[in-house]
């Protein structure tokens, strides 16, 4: 077995599974890893674990039967590419969301991004890895939808962290960073971006640990909370769906997703994973001022709304609706607003989400 194959199998032991089919690593994923890690790096990394399986330099050197200084040198080089996660003298292979997006804008290294994109399409879509990426084996989604207050009807109960502005303002730190959206970057590279004329590639808002990791690798631009909120609003206005980790605090990302490019939302719009991305606890309600123009239906990524101008009907499928509030942004008569409908329960903390994903994937987490 090659070092790259061993890395793939080791990654598959982490709480979020890796692209491994019937116990064998997906050949396309192994080739992707070969783009990311040189043979010299892979020779060391094959003794390491996926996030959060941290090992000290000494532990890795012991396992690899190599000199500590030599290991440190190799790992420091890998760190410059952002292809490893470091906590002082402890290291691990990055979590899958970072690893899979390194060649799509989350690293300054010169990877063969065309080939990486094609391989990603092969193991992610063709081999159906997206199911394991978006949800656990039991269907627990790792991301959830997050609307903004402007879309929510006045007087509706909004819990802490349920709304984008609240979430950002309630962060207990100032580590926020904008970095290119890897999903749209990848599709653009492959010449397959369907939303090219509608949306910019734009950025994701990285928070806390992920912001610090990207910043230390020289990726992205640090922003204030206000700048992050303004950016979120600007993208939401363009019709992009706000999404964040499926937890109430410790969030590490806020994505602004389109149904054509997003690796998570795509589960609902392009692939057969209907529980991908948890819906928000809101649903649009229509006022009598509705003129049945159908703009909301055309903007809905998940086809939850059907409008008939002739028959003057408006129908909403609550099973499909994400409660993102994008429809409210495009209503010319401001007839749509989000009303509360409790239906999901985000995890209270990062550990509780990751432990659940691990348990449902038959893995362990810390």
């Amino acid at each position: 077995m090659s070092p790259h194959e061993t890395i793939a199998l080791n990654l598959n032991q982490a709480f979020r599974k890796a692209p491994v089919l019937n116990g064998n690593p997906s050949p396309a994923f192994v080739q992707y890893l070969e783009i990311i890690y040189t043979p010299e790096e892979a020779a060391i990394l094959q003794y390491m674990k996926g996030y959060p399986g941290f090992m000290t330099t000494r532990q890795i050197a012991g396992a690899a039967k190599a000199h500590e200084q030599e290991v440190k040198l190799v790992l420091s080089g890998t760190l410059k590419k952002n292809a490893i996660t470091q906590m002082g003298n402890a290291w691990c292979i990055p979590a899958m969301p970072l690893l899979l997006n390194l060649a799509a804008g989350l690293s300054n290294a010169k990877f063969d991004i065309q080939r990486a994109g094609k391989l990603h399409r092969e193991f992610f879509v063709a081999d159906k890895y997206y199911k394991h990426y978006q949800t656990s084996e039991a269907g627990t989604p790792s991301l959830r939808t997050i609307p903004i207050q402007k879309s929510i009807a006045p007087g509706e109960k909004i819990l802490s962290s349920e709304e984008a502005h609240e979430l950002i303002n309630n962060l207990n730190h100032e580590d926020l960073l904008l970095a290119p959206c890897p999903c749209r970057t990848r599709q653009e590279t492959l010449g397959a971006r369907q939303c090219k004329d509608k949306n910019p590639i734009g950025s994701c808002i990285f928070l806390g640990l992920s912001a610090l990791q990207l910043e230390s690798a020289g990726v992205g631009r640090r922003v204030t909370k206000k700048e992050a909120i303004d950016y979120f609003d600007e993208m939401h206005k363009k019709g992009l769906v706000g999404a964040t980790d499926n937890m109430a605090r410790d969030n590490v990302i806020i994505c602004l997703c389109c149904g054509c490019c997003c690796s998570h939302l795509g589960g609902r719009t392009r692939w057969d994973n209907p529980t991908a991305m948890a819906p928000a606890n809101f649903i649009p309600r229509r006022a009598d001022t509705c003129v049945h123009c159908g703009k909301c239906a055309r903007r809905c990524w998940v086809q939850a709304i059907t409008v008939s101008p002739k028959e003057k009907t408006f129908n909403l499928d609550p099973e499909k609706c994400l409660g993102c509030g994008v429809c409210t942004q495009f209503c010319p008569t401001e007839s749509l607003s989000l009303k509360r409908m409790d239906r999901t329960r985000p995890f209270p903390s990062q550990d509780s989400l990751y432990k659940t994903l691990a348990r449902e994937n038959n893995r362990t987490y810390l």
Partner: protein
Amino acid sequence: MTRLKLKFLLLALAVALKFSQSRYPGIRERFKGKNRTIKIKAGKTEKTYTIRNGRFHLTAFREPACTSGLIWTDPGTALAVMTSGYDGDMMKAFQNNQARIQGDAMEIFWFFSTLKEIKDGLSGSLHKTWPV
């Protein structure tokens, strides 16, 4: 004063571990089958936490050799980071060489994850954040 506060914090963590072990099944599950001796050290201040045969012991017998340790450069940083409630502060301390890990790194991350779970349990936030 900082040293004293840190000493108190390290002792309080030990008491919380002992208390939570008897109160929360999740914590007992975490300790199950574990044999770990974890040392937190900052300057001359240090505290060892021993889990033997799946049970946390406040003091009791002679402690075995440490299986892992988190060594801070100074008590001030240790106190500030360990009470901040933000994981990024730990990462920044590591980036600035203000802390380093000895022994089994995973044990340290496991230990802090356990403390977070205890904190959530004590504050009740695991249950009250989302009433759905």
